């Protein structure tokens, strides 16, 4: 699926498939991306996110009608491609017995960088990640967040054109997560970053999204485009007892999802079932204890729920936009 405004794609996949024995992990991925940006790969567990990222990194044997990444074909020898990208796997893959400094030296030297360049770039990256005070600590003795920051620093050391990160903030505390995203944000104008994530706020930070379900990209576009294409209406219903309001709202025929926060109930109405905004608001305001019902802009949570709900139909949301 080509993303809007793409020219001379750094990633161009058409009908990309990957089987593990008889099990199909990717069933025909269509995806294109070009130029520096953050491309988020999202979707439920088992959708094929990790497989897609490993395929992009040239680590898998794949079948495809077209599978070009940085000008290299994934169906052929991917060694030249792998030398040009940075890859951060889901689990820490650097050497636990080696210190931060030694790990960066190994990575830099394997990329053929002179020691002086490794030291200079390493200094900058360690300063940015806050790892400088721990430079001689074995990687195995670092916290989860520090390990991920080291992995990202190592992946960025050789200044790759493509950076692939598989859930880099999974299991990482909120401070480290913000630091990791700050690093990615700094590079979004320079590098094509492909990142998978399960966090809604991180989804919002991506320039573009590819939503996977069952080994296929079922929606792609910018968060705004996908929100606009979301076939849902979202309402906030204010009252003294949001939980009770949410319970009552669930009984309404056109409501598909409810949630209660401390201040209001959040009501989702599929567009196809909606009797219209005025009618929905009127019905909601008739519920006991309701002070006000108002239409709200589709948020990322509603968008993701809508994508999950419509994914089984395998209809590309982006295509409808």
């Amino acid at each position, binding site marked *: 699926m080509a993303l809007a405004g793409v020219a001379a794609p750094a990633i161009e996949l058409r009908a990309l498939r990957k089987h593990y024995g008889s099990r199909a992990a990717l069933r025909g991925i269509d995806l294109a991306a070009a130029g520096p940006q953050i491309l988020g790969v999202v979707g439920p567990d088992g959708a094929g996110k990790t497989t897609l990222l490993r395929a992009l990194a040239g680590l898998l044997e794949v079948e495809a009608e077209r599978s070009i990444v940085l000008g290299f074909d994934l169906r052929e020898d991917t060694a030249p491609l792998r030398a040009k990208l940075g890859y951060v796997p889901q689990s820490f893959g650097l050497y636990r017995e080696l210190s931060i400094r*030694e790990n960066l030296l190994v990575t830099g030297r394997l990329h053929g960088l002179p020691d002086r360049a490794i030291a200079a770039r390493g200094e900058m990256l360690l300063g940015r990640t806050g790892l400088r005070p721990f430079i001689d600590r074995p990687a195995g003795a670092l916290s989860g967040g520090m390990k991920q920051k080291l992995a990202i620093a190592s992946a960025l050391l050789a200044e790759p054109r493509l950076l692939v990160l598989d859930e880099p903030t999974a299991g990482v505390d909120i401070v480290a997560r913000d630091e990791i995203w700050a690093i990615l944000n700094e590079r979004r104008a320079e590098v094509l970053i492909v990142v998978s994530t399960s966090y809604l706020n991180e989804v919002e930070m991506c320039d573009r999204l590819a939503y996977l379900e069952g080994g296929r990209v079922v929606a792609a576009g910018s968060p705004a485009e996908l929100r606009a294409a979301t076939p849902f209406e979202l309402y906030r219903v204010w009252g003294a007892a949001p939980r009770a309001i949410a319970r009552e709202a669930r009984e309404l025929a056109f409501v598909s999802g409810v949630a209660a926060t401390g201040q209001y109930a959040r009501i989702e109405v599929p567009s196809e079932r909606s009797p219209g905004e005025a009618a929905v608001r009127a019905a909601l305001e008739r519920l006991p204890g309701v002070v006000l019902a108002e239409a709200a802009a589709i948020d990322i949570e509603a968008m993701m729920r809508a994508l999950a709900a419509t994914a089984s139909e395998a209809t590309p949301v982006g295509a409808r936009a």
Partner: protein
Amino acid sequence: MKLARLLVLMRREALATLRDPFTVSILIAVPLVALLLFSSILSTSVEYLPMGVLDLDRSPASRRLVAGLAATRSFQPIALANRDQLDEMLRDGGLSLALVLPDGLDRGLRPDLGPAGPGRARPQVQVIYDGAETVLAGNAESFLGATMAATALGDAGVPAIVRASGASAGSGSVVRVVTRALFNPALDGKPYMVAGTFGFVLSFATTLIIAVSVVNERAAGTFEQLQVTPATNLEIVLGKVLPLGAVFSLDVILMMLAAGFLWGVWPAGSAVFFLLVSTFYQVVSLSLGLIISATSATAQEAVAKTVLLATPLIQLSGFALPIDNMAWAFRWFAEVIPATHYIRVSRAIYLRGEGPLDVAGELGVIVLMGAGLVALALRAVGRRA
């Protein structure tokens, strides 16, 4: 392949290995423990074996033979009064074997009475052993033959017959004693087992450690991380196996020194040649380890596969059991096992002091097998998921 990248990978592997105390202790302890255990427990040495002596001749010749056997410290002669006592003690386990020296032994040996002929039968010494202890008795039999050959009896050409008691006693199988210990006349089992233990360590331990090490790296993600660098698969594999190979070469030296200083077992041939052969043989085992690692998802699976694969192979390689005693199908199968050829070379150098030309045939087989396994290993490791 770039030497600079290979050196980076090798240095990395060496650093990581040296910083892991468990791996270091395994690399040192396994070869030494194997050497000590196998050379002691599986040793085929004959020492102070209880040997009944039924001396029906009671002559200077018979006493000389018994004294000669006792002096070797391999046998502990126990005088028997009669054949019934001999049978009873063999049945009870009080004896491992018994020697029956016939009446007329001394007279039969006297040269002045002329050579043995139709009218004058040569004296026959009878050796009876417990058929349930075939390995031990077999070694004793060989040793006895060798010792007798070195005595006046042997010089006089006294044939000995050996009869198994117990299960096969009824069959009355009679065999000639054949002296086989041309290069190990004392039949000391330690050199034999020391030379064989190199085969065990370099076949089993090497394969196991490389397989587990690579599987662990893959599980930890470090192999995948290396694959997204300019390092080629060949560099990655060599960067892993060369430092480990160097450690195993040091292990060979360590084992040679331990065997030498502990038991006085030094190679009869060139120690340098033995080290070179052993270092090259690791190519075979390391390749096998890489193939196992490429087909194993976890370290447990790699261990299980190595044990399942290596144990029968080592048993059939002649490490502990003589190949000549196996059924013909197993004898043929033993020839396709690399360890068989390495152990032959090892024993040839250690026991017989043979050089490169003497073992060229066996070395050729090892080289061919090594080339095949290296090709398979590179294909297996280089394959993407």
